[in-house]
């Protein structure tokens, strides 16, 4: 059994302070028994570090005394309950404490795997490294299970927010409740999102989000955005993609919009539009697009026709917008859709004659009619006004009850 250094120094501390081992709570000793010497106790430390007034007198400073104060119940309520002070605070076994104390035990002494991960994180390589206690706290340290519990999440996220203030997720957004920062950003191996090793890096994000959203992750594998080989085959080198598409490409990160948010519909169209510019502009030519832009929650958006995580080009037989599947796709909203009905062009482009000549011709016919009306009748109006103005300058006043010959101009009855 490989028990680390723990155990050797506490014995000495206990002997030095002559504190009976029986004062440690019996059940905690029993629980921790296999890894910890049974007589481990902090009662000697408690004698000073449990008394604020004593500490104040010794240190001569109230603030310093408050920092040194560790009431027993704080440790007893933590994940480290039952551990002796000296297991972490090595080198303080004698009193008066040597100055500075030689510390030999670290968190890594017990938590080796977490430390290994942390060493590779952005927190470790920062100019002012973010250490274990800055996130986990010290004496009130909580277990991983406790942190992951819904009521613990806020506490777990609070240390992150103390530095990453602007990344705090607003209360109405998804993931604001019940999700830890660490769930997506990794608890110890925390890296910048553009780091290739980050949990949110293109190759790994699917797995990270899939931890909770597993059914989505499975469907995503059949999506042209999710399947790189499919995508390359479809594009066949036509236009290289600037970016790999990952969950956050559409859903974004902290500013994610939930399905029950009124902005969801428009937001999701805007996300697709960042790459599919043309399809989005023609979508806004259609009734679906315009009603959506005005806040309709029932009008179809991209995902209603193309699918959300099963998007495929219409050339694929499995595509929602493949000709053979259109009746079924449209029928989701239009239950009486027929093969004729689905010939509607959801992306009308009046300038594209090849796509739909009827839209092209009707658009130009109606524009022609508009111009004709404006020119002929607008011209009629302008010339009429001009005639009356010219006549007025020549002294001929037109008007009801006004005589027309210049001699009587302006006469009113």
């Amino acid at each position: 059994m490989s028990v680390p250094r723990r155990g050797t120094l506490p014995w000495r501390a206990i002997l030095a302070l002559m504190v009976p081992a029986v004062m440690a709570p019996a059940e905690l000793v029993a629980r921790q028994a296999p890894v910890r010497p049974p007589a481990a106790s902090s009662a000697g430390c408690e004698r000073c570090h449990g008394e604020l007034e004593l500490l104040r007198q010794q240190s001569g400073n109230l603030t310093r005394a408050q920092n040194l104060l560790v009431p027993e119940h704080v440790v007893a309520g933590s994940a480290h309950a039952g551990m002796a002070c000296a297991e972490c605070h090595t080198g303080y076994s004698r009193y008066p404490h040597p100055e500075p104390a030689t510390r030999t035990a670290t968190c890594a002494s017990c938590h080796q795997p977490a430390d290994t991960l942390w060493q590779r994180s952005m927190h470790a390589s920062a100019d002012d490294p973010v250490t274990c206690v800055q996130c986990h706290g010290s004496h009130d340290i909580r277990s991983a299970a406790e942190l992951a519990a819904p009521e613990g999440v806020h506490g777990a996220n609070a240390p992150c927010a103390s530095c990453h203030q602007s990344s705090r997720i607003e209360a109405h957004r998804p993931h604001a409740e019940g999700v830890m920062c660490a769930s997506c950003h990794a608890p110890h191996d925390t890296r910048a999102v553009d780091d290739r090793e980050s949990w949110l890096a293109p190759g790994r994000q699917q797995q990270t989000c899939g931890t909770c959203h597993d059914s989505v992750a499975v469907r995503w594998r059949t999506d042209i955005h999710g399947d790189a080989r499919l995508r390359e085959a479809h594009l066949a080198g036509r236009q290289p993609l600037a970016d790999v598409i990952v969950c956050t490409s559409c859903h974004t990160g902290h500013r994610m919009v939930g399905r029950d948010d009124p902005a969801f519909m428009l937001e999701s169209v805007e996300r697709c539009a960042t790459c599919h510019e043309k399809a989005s502009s023609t979508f806004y030519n259609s009734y679906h697009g315009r009603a959506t832009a005005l806040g309709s929650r029932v009008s179809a958006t991209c995902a209603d026709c193309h699918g959300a995580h099963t998007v495929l080009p219409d050339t694929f037989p499995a595509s929602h917008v493949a000709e053979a599947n259109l009746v079924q796709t449209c029928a989701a909203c239009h239950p009486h859709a027929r093969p004729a009905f689905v010939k509607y062009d959801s992306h009308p482009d009046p300038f594209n004659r090849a796509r739909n000549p009827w839209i092209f011709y009707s658009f130009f016919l109606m524009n022609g009619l508009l111009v004709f009306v404006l020119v002929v009748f607008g011209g009629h109006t302008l010339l009429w006004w001009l005639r009356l103005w010219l006549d007025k300058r020549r002294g001929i006043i037109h008007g009801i009850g006004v005589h027309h010959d210049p001699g009587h101009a302006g006469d009113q009855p």
Partner: protein
Amino acid sequence: MSTTKVPLDSAQRGRGPYVWRFNLMHRWTHFFAMLSFYVLILTGLPLRFACAPFAEPLIRFWGGVEQAGLIHRWMAGFMVAYTLVHIVYIAARFIRSREKKRWLWGSDTMVPHPQDAKDFVAMWKWFFGRGERPRFGRYGYLEKMDYFGEVWGFIVIGGSGFVLWFPEFFGQWLPGWWFNVATVFHGYEAMIAAAFLFTIHFFNVHLRPDKFPLDAVMFTGRATMDYMVEEHPEMEEVLRRNADGPVSERAIHDLPAPPPSRRMTLVGTVLGFVTWGIGLTTIGMILWAVLC
């Protein structure tokens, strides 16, 4: 030069007596047409120009896009209803008329005439100083243009709107792109109608300098003899002949009428100003949307 106060309503200017020009049926039909057109254009406009800055506040005014759509359809139904009443009324008037030939072909008919084309040409000649201003009958080409313009608009907008109202029903036989075409026709014809009514019609009846700022004859139903002689000189002889006829609210055309009451004048003036105010604002919104 006289300092007599000129009434705002150009139909009340000049010498009397007053004569009936529009009966209650005409006036209510025009009022309904006005009301429904305004509601239809203001509920449809935000959808047509969904990207315009005014679209969102305007749709909020109606209580959301679904609500606006519902009001739009109710108003379309109302428009169909009064149009049917109007058709029945016109048919009944024609059937009961003892002078069917005059009704269709007389100088005071609403039916388009070769004379209208001649008047139209004469009007352009007058604009360029190449002739006299044409002498209109009771209904000149201006009135016929307004009336048949609306008939055309009703058919195009109503037809396309009806197809768009029941896409699944029509989609059983019509290929789906008919809805695309219907959308183009519906939106553009509505814009043409708005452009025509809110600039050309408004100028012709209210805003031209010789009638500015208002002509409330369609609201009060009556105008002075001087107004009729100026605007519809061909009717002068008929009007003078009828000068001693009966005075009746049941409005037989061209008969003497009592002067409009103060209340009637107020209603007509307010309606006139409010409607051309909304109309010109709507034109402003369309220009804003098109130019932005």
